[in-house]
């Protein structure tokens, strides 16, 4: 007896109806979903009613996708925080009574006040479903077990991945409240098939495993799913994780306040927009959609955030709008390379845009350098300049550090075309992180940022 009929289990897509829908039909469906969401938000969210009234936009005026692009205002985190501050925790941002709350999350608050996120049962089920598109594409089914080395706190993190395992019908094994050594012992004891973690933690477990004499490639883990920071779509980082674990590595890109928007796929070269439950634009600094193949800011609308609607939300993430299908067979929008950086981390060195993800990928080309590095950005009168601090691998003679640094500088110069100083340091000299690594240190004066012009204020 099986959970899914055999002919269903053999299907390539979780929802082939929408995942292979031609673009023109998908866009028509998006228009109906956007209109429904805007109408709901205007009727039920004081924050959205005030925002649309301020911009003199009524829901019934959004008749085409062009109207949506041109007329509907963007919204940023600060506006939501201001709306929540009216009467904490949710204030004017709330669209549904507390009766319908299922779970509350909050962002980490590392940039100031935390943003509070109410999830209804409806939202929670569909946050989970976003992960299922990836699980299914990765060949994972109800019979598989998923290990969560995660502490189940107030930060959304992997909660939605857990909801996805429930939605799929597979097994959850919790590694909450344990240190890394205990988690490795659990993996040995319970023999899960899948491990979910940030790329940093997936690699950190490798260091812990070495300390206690465990070969991760010999564990039961055959699939690693990473999320929470760029890495899974950076070939060298993905390869490092796959080699370490002896497993296939996939990525999901999500945003804490809006959900798991972009599941990866079997091709492992990027992520797709989950177009059943999200709409997205990729825009330039003028707020206009970029041409296919170009990089821009990811602007997301959720169809499933009925507790606290978010429409044309500025993520500040930079992605490339794919100009060709990825080859997995879905018609959903493809972002090769996943998240390339942040608008507030974008570096311009002598007129060349440099993305942190590119720096990581190129450092991996230097044999002798480990996966630990820091990018320090500063600015003189006219230009950003970058210094990279990289760690040598254990066993590398210190006399070679300068040579490795020159090799890395040569790679940056030949591939990106810019001069970036690289200082190589001893192994373990840089901080270690359990969850998200802090790689980017911005010493530039405030105000030197990507500015999204227009449509933020009337």
């Amino acid at each position, binding site marked *: 007896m099986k959970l899914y009929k055999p002919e269903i289990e053999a299907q390539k897509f979780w929802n082939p109806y929408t995942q292979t829908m031609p673009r023109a039909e998908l866009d028509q*469906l998006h228009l109906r*979903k956007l209109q*429904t969401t805007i109408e709901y938000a205007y009727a*039920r969210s004081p924050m959205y009613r005030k925002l649309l009234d301020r911009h003199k936009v009524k829901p019934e005026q959004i008749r085409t996708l062009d109207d949506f692009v041109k007329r509907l205002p963007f919204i940023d985190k600060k506006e939501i925080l201001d709306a929540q501050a009216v009467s904490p925790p949710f204030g004017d941002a709330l669209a*549904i009574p507390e009766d319908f709350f299922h779970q509350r999350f909050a962002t980490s608050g590392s940039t100031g006040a935390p943003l509070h996120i109410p999830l209804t*049962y409806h939202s929670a*089920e569909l946050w989970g479903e976003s992960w299922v598109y990836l699980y299914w594409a990765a060949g994972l089914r109800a019979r598989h077990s998923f290990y969560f080395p995660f502490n189940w706190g107030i930060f959304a993190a992997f909660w939605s991945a857990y909801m996805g395992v429930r939605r799929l019908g597979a097994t959850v094994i919790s590694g909450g409240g344990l240190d890394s050594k205990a988690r490795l012992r659990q993996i040995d004891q319970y023999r899960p098939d899948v491990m979910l973690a940030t790329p940093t933690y997936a690699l950190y477990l490798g260091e812990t495993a070495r300390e206690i004499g465990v070969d991760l490639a010999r564990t039961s883990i055959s699939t690693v799913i990473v999320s929470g920071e760029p890495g899974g779509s950076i070939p060298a980082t993905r390869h490092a994780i796959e080699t370490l674990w002896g497993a296939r590595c996939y990525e999901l890109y999500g945003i804490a306040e809006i959900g798991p928007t972009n599941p990866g796929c079997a091709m492992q070269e990027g992520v797709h927009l989950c177009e*059943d439950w999200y709409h997205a634009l990729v825009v330039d600094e003028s707020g206009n959609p970029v041409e296919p193949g170009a990089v821009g800011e990811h602007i997301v609308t959720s*169809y499933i955030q*009925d507790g606290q609607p978010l429409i044309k939300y500025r993520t500040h993430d930079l992605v490339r709008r794919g100009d060709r299908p990825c080859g997995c067979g879905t018609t959903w929008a493809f972002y090769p390379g996943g998240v390339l950086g942040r608008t507030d981390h974008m570096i311009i060195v002598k007129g060349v845009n440099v993305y942190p993800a590119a720096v990581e990928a190129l450092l991996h080309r230097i044999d002798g350098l480990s996966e630990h590095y820091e990018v320090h950005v500063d600015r003189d009168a006219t230009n950003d300049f970058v210094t990279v601090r990289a760690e040598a691998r254990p066993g590398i003679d210190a006399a070679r550090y300068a040579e490795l640094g020159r090799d890395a500088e040569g790679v940056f110069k030949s591939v990106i075309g810019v001069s970036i100083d690289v200082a190589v340091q001893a192994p373990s000299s840089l901080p270690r992180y359990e969850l998200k690594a802090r790689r980017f240190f911005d010493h530039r004066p405030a105000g030197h940022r990507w500015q999204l012009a227009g449509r933020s204020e009337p």
Partner: protein
Amino acid sequence: MLARLRDLQTRVQELRQAADNPALERTMQLLDLYCHMARWELGDVRAMNPEAETR
């Protein structure tokens, strides 16, 4: 399939109205929610959530 889903949801909503105990009402509410989700998955978009559709 869509017609059958809509019909099913109508009957679930009637049952929810008629439910005379909390356990049954909650189960019917979840059934209503899942019917609503299934309709969205087939492109039948009417409202943001089932509560918005019926009130």
